[in-house]
């Protein structure tokens, strides 16, 4: 946010939908205050809960314990690795497909739309029930085939590829929507044709003309995927892996203060990550604007 405030070009740009005549609308203030209360009070109360321990007064022990707590570092690292892998895979799959749908294969568009909406029809818990069934085939039917090794590798606890596969599927609807909205705002066909007329080949047209125009959509898709993976609990827990969310849950059973402290921190971590990504996007956006 600081970036946007320091940049006069963005502040001067009038917000979309703002009325030129300034009218005082009290309902807006009431709505915003109510929403602010509802969304901030639980966070504030959580902080109070972790800091103000009965019979101990104000103490920051809960936060001090986090770093030394068993499994904190490894589970957080695992979640971040999973997020990076998921974002990479889902963008590599979706961006070429979505651009191609706009350019040369409009008949496939409903097919891709339905495919990307399917994960919404299968809730994560139902999906994981299916995955668990498939993973059971490994030891039951395939123990003498080379496929068995694949099944073992998929479930490597250091980096469970099966979770990346699941997360990519679960991210498809969000990524589809984000990219579709982005592509709707640009005339890809004209852009590509212009680039091709200027002598660019296909990869150049895609990477240097189409992708920069989609930066907002790409960032948006990455945010959503990142948030999804960092907070994902269902699939990981029921398959027996321990990324960050599962770790918080396992801590919660024994130490109430610590678990709430980690929950507060995890929200802050997610916030920080998303805001820094948003800041990056904003900076490069204004940089390209000033260049043009």
């Amino acid at each position, binding site marked *: 946010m600081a970036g946007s405030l320091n940049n006069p070009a963005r502040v001067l740009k009038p917000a979309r939908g703002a009325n030129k005549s300034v009218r005082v609308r009290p309902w807006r203030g009431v709505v915003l205050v109510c929403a602010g209360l509802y969304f901030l009070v639980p966070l504030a*109360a959580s902080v109070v809960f972790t800091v103000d321990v009965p019979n101990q007064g104000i103490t920051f022990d809960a936060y001090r314990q986090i770093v030394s707590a068993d499994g904190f570092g490894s589970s957080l690292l695992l979640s971040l690795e999973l997020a990076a892998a998921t974002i990479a895979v889902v963008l590599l799959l979706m961006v070429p497909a979505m651009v191609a749908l706009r350019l040369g294969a409009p008949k496939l568009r409903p097919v891709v739309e339905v495919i990307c909406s399917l994960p919404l029809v299968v809730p994560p818990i139902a999906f994981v029930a299916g995955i668990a069934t498939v993973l059971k085939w490994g030891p039951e039917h395939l123990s003498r085939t080379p496929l068995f090794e694949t099944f073992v590798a998929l479930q490597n606890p250091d980096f469970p590829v099966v979770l990346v596969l699941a997360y990519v599927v679960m991210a498809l609807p969000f990524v589809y929507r984000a990219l579709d909205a982005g592509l709707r705002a640009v005339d890809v066909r004209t852009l590509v044709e212009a680039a091709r007329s200027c002598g660019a080949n296909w990869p150049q047209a895609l990477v240097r003309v189409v992708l920069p125009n989609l930066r907002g959509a790409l960032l948006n898709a990455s945010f959503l995927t990142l948030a999804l993976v960092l907070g994902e609990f269902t699939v990981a827990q029921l398959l027996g892996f321990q990324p960050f969310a599962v770790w918080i849950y396992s801590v919660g059973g024994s130490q109430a203060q610590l678990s709430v402290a980690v929950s507060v921190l995890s929200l802050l971590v997610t916030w920080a990550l998303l805001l820094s990504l948003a800041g990056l996007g904003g900076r490069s956006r204004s940089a390209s604007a000033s260049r043009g």
Partner: protein
Amino acid sequence: MTTVLTEAGADVTPAAAASQRRRRRAPGWLAVLPLLVFVAIAFGVPALAMLNGAFTVKDQTTGATSYTTANLTDSLQGAYFTALIGSVKLSAVSAGIATVLGLPLAQAVVTSRFRALREAVLTASGVLANFGGVPLAFAFVATLGNAGVLTEHLGLKDKGWNLYSFWGLVIVYLYFLIPLMVLTITPALDGLRSQWREAAQNNGATGIQYWRYIALPVLTPSLLGGLVLLFGSAFAAYATAAAMVGSAVPLVTLQIADAISGNVLVGQENVALALSLDMVLIAGLVMAVYLPLQRRSARWLEA
């Protein structure tokens, strides 16, 4: 799948030597292909496994499997059925409330003169909409749980407040459903042209009339689509409920998790898969309503 594969193959071979127009189409099929293959493996195989398992029963003594609808019948009886109804009720109530509350919030943000406020709220919504799950449950336990900060300071316990109940869950679910509604409805609100409002004003319409006859009809498909999306989101939620209420409120997701973890009677191992199939059918119904609505609202906004 097969038709796509063959068509793609047929398209590639002549493409190399064919006209400019033909050459331009070849990457189209090729670029979509990896996505289709990936979904077929990562999503199709587990989905088929679930479907197959929902209809099979393994005989304990012989180990032979046979096809039957016994699992599905079991999943629609007794505790399982109660859980299914409980999930539908909880999702419908919280999605409805979130839709009603999310619209004014989104409108307040969209019409705001402060761009920073808009960006902050939308970023926050993006975070909060995905902030379901364990941290959310723990934050609310710390706030409104039995030993929660608000519960103790306001003496809510004496007034009969209990977070680990149906309405407790509704309040917690709203925490991620309202931001989701804001995210869903904001593009539609952005699509409301200021010219429409000006035209209405020039014709002497009041603010209420503008909303009643112009804005809400245009927004209806988006609103209904959002409502349905929220229902699906609440229906599928598992982590929040699991971390918060345990089994105090019967929910289908909790029953499935229980069954996957092996807490079922002998011979009912596949009931989890049958319950999953029930969920898929309900969510499928939701989608069947949502997609046409989405298309209708998109048509208005594109025009």
